């Protein structure tokens, strides 16, 4: 919509695909921090236990899953205690689904700002994806506690792979989130369809069951789901398993890169009509 030449802005109609203006994003980095800070500040306002929710939610889910799937259904967990098995996958899944939900609704939630002020709109899905990271770190503390309780030490590779897995989850959530938020501006159906879709996706992601219970010839299908590789790798390093599923990780990475690029460009392409249809 606008071209910058030094201090000069040329505003003219655009058609088709629009490139991503990194310089502009950089110029607006402070606003990005502020949006993220706001989302975090507001997240647990007027609650009694505040940020404890970030711990309580995954913890209770873990308890429920352990009882129903671990105990009653007797789902295998590759030899590790089921609670720690499910929890190590759950924290990544929770991050992904919360971030995706936030990013997808961010344009409509911030409609009043979008209609009144210009800033690179991409800041919104990105900051909505950043904020749930804080919840992730709180939830991670519980995992540390569980490791102590079960005498389970993580692999040394955690130091390298944890940041990488987080980055991948971030890219997956923000890429898909950008795409969905852009669609959401026009079709509010997204808001209603998404919770349902993430729930479905949850069952085709090896969170509550190990991938080994799925026949091997279907593994590649599961690997198309970006969170599969991430969760399996996370488990392998957290639980110090011998084999790290690099092939799956590479699959997932490729899928995430495609998703991310497509999401961003789709977003940029439709960006100019946001203020008109929001």
């Amino acid at each position: 919509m606008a071209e910058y030449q030094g201090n000069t802005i040329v505003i003219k109609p655009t058609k088709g695909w629009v490139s991503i203006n990194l310089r502009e994003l950089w110029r607006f980095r402070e606003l990005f921090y502020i949006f993220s800070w706001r989302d975090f500040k507001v997240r647990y306002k007027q609650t009694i236990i505040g940020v404890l929710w970030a711990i309580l939610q995954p913890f209770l889910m873990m308890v429920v899953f352990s009882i129903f799937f671990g105990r009653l259904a007797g789902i295998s967990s590759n030899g590790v205690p089921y609670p720690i098995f499910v929890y190590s996958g759950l924290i990544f899944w929770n991050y992904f689904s919360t971030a995706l939900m936030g990013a997808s609704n961010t344009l409509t939630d911030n409609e009043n700002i979008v209609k009144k002020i210009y800033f690179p709109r991409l800041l919104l899905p990105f900051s909505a994806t950043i904020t749930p990271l804080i919840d992730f770190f709180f939830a991670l503390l519980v995992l540390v506690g569980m490791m102590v309780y079960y005498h389970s030490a993580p692999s040394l590779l955690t130091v390298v792979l944890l940041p990488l897995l987080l980055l991948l989850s971030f890219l997956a959530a923000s890429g898909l989130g950008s795409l969905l938020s852009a669609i959401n501006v026009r079709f509010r159906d997204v808001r209603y369809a998404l919770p349902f879709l993430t729930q479905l996706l949850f069952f085709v992601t090896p969170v509550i069951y190990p991938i080994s219970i799925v026949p091997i010839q279907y593994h590649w299908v599961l690997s198309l789901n970006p969170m599969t590789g991430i969760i399996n790798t996370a488990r392998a390093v957290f639980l110090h398993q011998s084999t790290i599923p690099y092939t799956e990780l590479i699959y997932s990475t490729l899928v995430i890169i495609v998703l991310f690029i497509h999401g961003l460009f789709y977003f940029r392409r439709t960006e100019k009509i946001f203020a008109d249809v929001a």
Partner: protein
Amino acid sequence: MEQAIISAQNLSKAYRISHRASYGTLRDSISQLAKRLLTKTDQHDTVEEYWALRDINFDVQTGECIGIIGKNGAGKSTLLKILSQITSPTSGQVTINGRVASLLEVGTGFHSELTGRENIFLNGAILGMKQSEIRKKFDEIVAFAEVEKFLDTPVKRYSSGMYVRLAFAVAAHLEPEILIVDEVLAVGDAEFQKKSLGKMREVSERSGRTVIFVSHNMAAIRKLCQRVLLLDKGRIIASGKTDAIITQYLRPQQEYQSESLFNDDAHDVQFRRVATLNIHNQPVREFSFGDKILLQINFDVKKKIFSTLIIGFEIYNDEGLCIFTSTNADQSGVPKKIGVGKFQANIYIDTQQLLRPGNFTLNFHAIVPNICIIENIEGEIGFSVMDSNENITSKLGYIRRGVLEPVLPWNIQKLS
């Protein structure tokens, strides 16, 4: 001549108004698609293009303060939105040589859960201020808004006055090279409005910043702007010195008659003549504030009306607002039966009680309630009420806002 800081060339913006459900759900779109595929005909449900702006050309020099005026729907807000990059033009382009901050609303992005202090930082950042800049001006903003005591209270507990003051205070401390301002001075109480206007003047005059200012408040435009663009139906219809353009804008577009005759014969109740007369029974279209207007309606009833016949008129002001409606049922509630024949109605309108200086148009109607509208005449005659010494506004140099300027009996007693 130096290069213009803002230069718009052939700027146009079209909105597409589709005559089907406007912001559709996915289901609508799918069913539309299915319909189109099945019926083969390229049935592009009537999509109408509405040109909110058409071939806008103007230049703004550095340090100028430009006013943009026009009726609602003239395209002012669309123009500001394009200049602020919120929406993109359909054709044409604008070149801007400087850092722009736009203020289309005060308090954009304010979050009700956050405190005053937090909102200053949030809103400042949204408006394009650097955090360091906000920190430097923080005390000044707080002092301007007069909210020191409530800095750490969530703004949802603020009174609406405090909220608006804080919001404006942040905006007033923006320091861009170009400031784009929509109708934001109309917030807060009178005193705060004065303060805001003063701040705006300071911004444009003392610091030599370029300002583009949209307002319906002609007094504010006069005070702030040297030059004005007048928009109408998406086009610039006049531009130039503020006073000249404002006069042109306020002049009624059409010279209304003081008397109108009708020869039509189609209706059972037929208006023959409507007129505005002065106390000497002469048709005139200009009255002084304080005068009484005699409104005369001649009509024929050609057929017996079995139900109640209501004859009435409506008075509209410049902005298309209906000031009031009056009918032959005003006094009794149930009007006297009107038989067949020729009639004349005389109504006196006290300008001082019911109107205020300005231009007015009249509509007339004859209806049978709940059954039909027999006759309806719109905008045939009109009149102006001129300012006079009777007007308290001119006596005290004090502006009374409102649609009316009634004289009410005040009784003030000293309490012991």
